[in-house]
């Protein structure tokens, strides 16, 4: 489940795991008020302040935030190239050749598996202990152990703010 942008810039709530543009299993166009309150609940890990905690929701980038981030991308320390795994286009990604897409998906699932092996499973409480200066990696506390996560990966971890 997630909130995505449709072709026509509507905010859409999609109730399926892997929606494609042709067959989104079920979606609702949302009113601004609803989305805003939903967005307030969900955030990506990098948006937490030091000491703030949340519960891991899933490992898909939070598209509402992605859209916002696009406008302030050139903030200090964030101008290095983002590569082809741009979170903005995650749900409806159709560009690029098939091989590349497959490889991306594989890398991503491996990355998710690694995070889960370290204890970041959905539903787990996570606390941001410290973030490195100059938009560097984040130190988080999960299941009693401290782990450092790169900012790029952290930005793809969606959490419910507590």
């Amino acid at each position, binding site marked *: 489940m997630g909130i995505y942008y449709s072709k026509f810039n509507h905010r859409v709530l999609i109730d399926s795991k892997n929606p494609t543009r042709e067959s989104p299993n079920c979606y609702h166009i949302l009113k601004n008020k609803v989305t805003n309150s939903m967005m307030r609940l969900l955030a990506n890990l990098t948006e937490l302040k030091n000491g703030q905690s949340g519960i891991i929701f899933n490992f898909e980038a939070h598209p509402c935030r992605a859209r916002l981030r696009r406008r302030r991308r050139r903030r200090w320390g964030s101008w290095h190239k983002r590569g082809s795994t741009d979170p903005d286009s995650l749900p409806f990604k159709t560009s690029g050749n098939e091989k590349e897409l497959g490889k991306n998906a594989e890398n991503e699932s491996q990355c998710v598996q690694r995070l889960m092996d370290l204890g970041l499973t959905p*539903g787990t409480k996570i606390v941001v202990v410290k973030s490195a*200066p100059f938009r560097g990696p984040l130190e988080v506390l999960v299941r009693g152990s401290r782990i450092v996560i790169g900012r790029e990966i952290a930005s793809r971890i969606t959490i419910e703010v507590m």
Partner: protein
Amino acid sequence: MNIEVEKEGNLQLALEHGRIGSDLSAKKGELRIALAGNANVGKSVLFNQMTGLHQHIGNWPGKTVERAEGTLHFKGYTIDIIDLPGIYSLSTYSIEELVSREYIIDEKPDLVINVVDASLIERNLFFTLQLIELGTPLLIALNQMDLAKRKGIAIATDKLEELLGVPVIPTIAVKGIGIFDLLDKAIEIIEKGQKRKQQLVSEKNEGGQGETSKEEDYCSDSLKYGSEIEGRIGKLAALLKKNNFRYPDRYMAIKLLEEDKEIIEETGKIDTKISAEAKELAKDIEKIHNHSCSTVITSERYEKAGWIARNVMQIKSPIKPLIEERLHDITTHRIFGYPIMIIILFSMFLLVFTFGGWLNSLLTNFFYGVQSIFQGTFGVETISALVWSIIEGLIAGITIVLPYIIPFYFILYVLENSGYLSRIAFLMDNLMHKIGLHGKAFIPMINHGAFCGAG
């Protein structure tokens, strides 16, 4: 824990070390024990304590993963100990994980000692549960008991033993405490296992019935997953039973549901029906939980690990920040971290260069003294001059390597082992990304710069 007994134990261990050559008559055979566990749990310390200087460090064939092997003589056995790389899971994320998994499955060590960090028991048990699923003979070394104590964590080892169905020995590897007990228990388990195997073989010869009960009992009830998953695992395991795979059925069924690439490939070669069935079952689970099946199983496993941890752990005193934690806080501080880093790196170079310079001039003076003696005895003819020029080349090498590079590597070793290098990586990560490198590349870069200057 009785320290006196422990000391005696170590003494005995030392005696065993000393008796390598003389006690061949009591030799009972060779055993292989593997050490497995998370990174930074003191596996290597334990390994060093057990094997002393009888080590042999190499690489795993064809892979850039270090393989440390050592021998130990204990109670008449020659024990070959292998230190597996530190990993968090037995999936196929990294080569280290693959190497460990394949070693345990293919080379079948007599026993795997799972080193567990008592102060971080939940994450460590996650890995332990996977080892139990692998169905290998297992013994747990509950290491760093002292650190856990300082953190205010008390662990009921007997309870842990009962819940996991695996023997647990508390150890403090740094001080050598518990190692004798650990080896003692290891031998006991192996001997028991061998006896049972013999029994099975004889039973098989007599009635041919002993085989079926062989691998049924390695998953105790407290370790089972939720019924919706367990049922599907059972279904798959029943299918797998017909074929003889090198992995145990239950483990393989779980890995098939987790969509482990290697395992799917392997089953696909033999029976495509099974992998198709696994896909169906995985989809069912996905539908129930609305997460991918591997996510569900991993969460479920962590849930189990957490449940066990909560059951055996008791947090006693209010947690007072440890000195390590304070050091960590200050060295990764967003303002103070950088001056500290600069001071440490600067003093490192200062130390290396002043000490190196002093030793260098000392050595050079010494060699020039030798030169005059050399020339005094052999003269300055062509041949002796030629010989001297060769010696001079060697001297040049020695006067650089000995005073500069060796102390430098020593300091780097200390910094690495204290964990400070990863703190630097934490601070420098983003800045290094800007020049297209990883945060960890900072130290090699600095060193390179400095030594080009020195050269």
